[in-house]
């Protein structure tokens, strides 16, 4: 009788322990939602340098300045191209929405002296010949993917969750991504992108980040296309957050003036 009672107690204890363990373990969706929900400043400005390196080791450098404003419902971004010389004076503006609405995009080409609305339907296009697509540079909502926590592991001496994300909708350019998320800061340290055939296509690594005015800000990232042996490093300098960028920064006047 005593043995029976003891067995029952042990069973109840281990059951409760297991339930507690499941409760403390976050799901893939929760982890990715935390990454998405990291506080972002209302506005940010920075000088951006993009270094493209091909398989021969040749480097091409693009420089631009960018201003971003986000009121919670809509993100406005404007970029002014500084180099190389043949694109100097070009500006690009993007308004993106928290709804299903497509982004609005305009480009100003100094040779044409005219601001032109352009189609935003090509998010799979590569940005300025880099390894980043327009989609890679934007925020992808966690609800667009199914997430699965694969494991926990140490990467570069830091404890990470490893989460696999698979698009819910068909036709996305990536079959899946696998993200290493820092456990203590909820930011992505590394992400592998797999092509439509399920082969590793690109690897994104965060090289440098800083806390700027209370916001975790990525200052340097590298995207390597392992299939084409091509890499792009994006680094930010002179980052300023919450400086109160005027709404007039995101207008035709600003695009035309180039600042």
């Amino acid at each position: 009788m005593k043995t029976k009672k003891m067995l029952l107690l042990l069973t109840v204890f281990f059951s409760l322990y297991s339930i507690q363990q499941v409760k403390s373990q976050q799901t893939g969706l929760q982890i990715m939602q935390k990454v998405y929900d990291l506080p972002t400043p209302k506005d940010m400005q920075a000088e951006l340098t993009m270094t493209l390196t091909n398989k021969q080791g040749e480097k091409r450098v693009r420089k631009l300045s960018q201003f971003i404003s986000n009121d919670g419902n809509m993100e406005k971004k404007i970029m002014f191209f500084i180099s190389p010389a043949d694109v100097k004076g070009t500006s690009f503006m993007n308004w993106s929405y928290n709804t299903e609405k497509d982004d609005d995009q305009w480009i100003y080409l100094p040779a044409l002296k005219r601001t032109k609305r352009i189609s935003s339907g090509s998010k799979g296009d590569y940005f300025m010949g880099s390894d980043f697509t327009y989609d890679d540079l934007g925020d992808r909502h966690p609800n667009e993917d199914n997430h699965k926590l694969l494991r926990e592991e140490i990467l570069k001496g830091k404890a990470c969750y490893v989460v696999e994300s698979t698009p819910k909708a068909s036709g996305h350019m990536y079959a899946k991504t696998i993200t290493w998320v820092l456990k203590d800061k909820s930011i992505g340290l590394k992400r592998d992108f797999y092509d439509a055939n399920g082969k590793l296509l690109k690897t994104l690594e965060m090289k440098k980040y800083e806390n700027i005015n209370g916001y975790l800000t990525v200052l340097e990232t590298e995207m390597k296309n392992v299939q084409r042996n091509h890499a792009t490093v994006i680094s930010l300098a002179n980052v300023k957050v919450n400086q109160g960028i005027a709404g007039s920064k995101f207008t035709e006047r600003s695009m035309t003036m180039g600042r």
Partner: protein
Amino acid sequence: MKKKLFFATVLLVTVFNVQAQDEVRFNGYVRNYTGVLMADFNQFSIVQNTLNLNIEKKTDRIGFKVNPYVYHYADRELEIGLREAFLDLYFDNLDIRVGKQQIIWGKAEGVFITDIISPKDLREFLLPDFEEIRTGVTSFKVNYYKGVHTIEGVWVPVFTPTLMPEAGSIWQPDMIFPIEPTWDYSTSVKDLTLQNSEAFLRYSMMSSAFDLELVGGTFFYDDPAMHLTRQMNPATMQLQNLTVRPDYHRVSMGGGSFSIPLGDLVIRAEGAYYAGRNFQTTSSTAPDATIEKDYLHYMAGIDYTLGGVKLSAQFIQENILNYETGIYNNEIESTMTFLAKKDFLRERLWVELFAYVGLNNSDALIRPKVSYAFADGFDIQTGANLFTGDKGRFGQYNDNDMLYMKLKYSF
């Protein structure tokens, strides 16, 4: 002499350094453009070396830009000019720009409907780059901004006409005269008077839903009307002498343009109503061979990206109202344009096909080209300008098919 050269060099370097410290920026390009006629590979259609320099400075309140250019030709005189030279004043909601400037309006591409302030340089027909096909015009421009709305007023005190090809140029358009005329240029230059100035107004807005422009102006039409005086031989009653007097006439224009995003598409449209434009006619009721008519010019276009290929098509129509028999132009002239453009090798290689197609005369100008960025800022471009048809705006140049190469270094 050596001393002078030395001091001039020192002065230039010093001035350049002082200006550089003061954030005066220099950029521009050097370009070689060589073209040959396909009908006769022994004949160059153009051999041109270009220096284009932009000197500019902007502070919070003021700015200036000077854009001198030099065209050196193998078979023509050196051409030095100022494409732009203006001063800027910036206020909180207002900008003022005074001087020679290019002002571009409208949503159409490669077609000039409401884009009527900066005259065109048609000495090489429609072949130059868009930056070069529009000439600067001396003007006072004021822009007032209120949110996404802009009102722009332009006053042009000096009339500048379209630059037409010189006599003997392969780009001289077909002449409609039965005999070789005598030219009378007495009215082709407008006096510098307040009465001869031009005025334009534009309202524009840029929003998430659509972009809009409404424009109007009173100005001299940039292409001349050819007024004819015929002298008949009384004995034979044959035309003995013909005098042609080019003149520019004032017109009024009102119009607008818009572009709307529609999913993956961008729909564009532009239209203008011209009151009092002069046309050439053979009608006996017009003794000097010109007649005044109102005129509509409009366009609808679509932009789309498919598989990384940027595609664009435009349908353009010109419509002479209250048309009369004898007018040299068609009552309705329809044109289409097509563009397909794609980049390869991470924006190092661009392949493009642009075409104008004249629907009335089944003529066309087809412009395939390939550009390769040999290094950052250094482009090698090769292409062709192919004319089809035997009459019409493009067919008249059927003998001018050309292959060309451009080497351009931007700095």
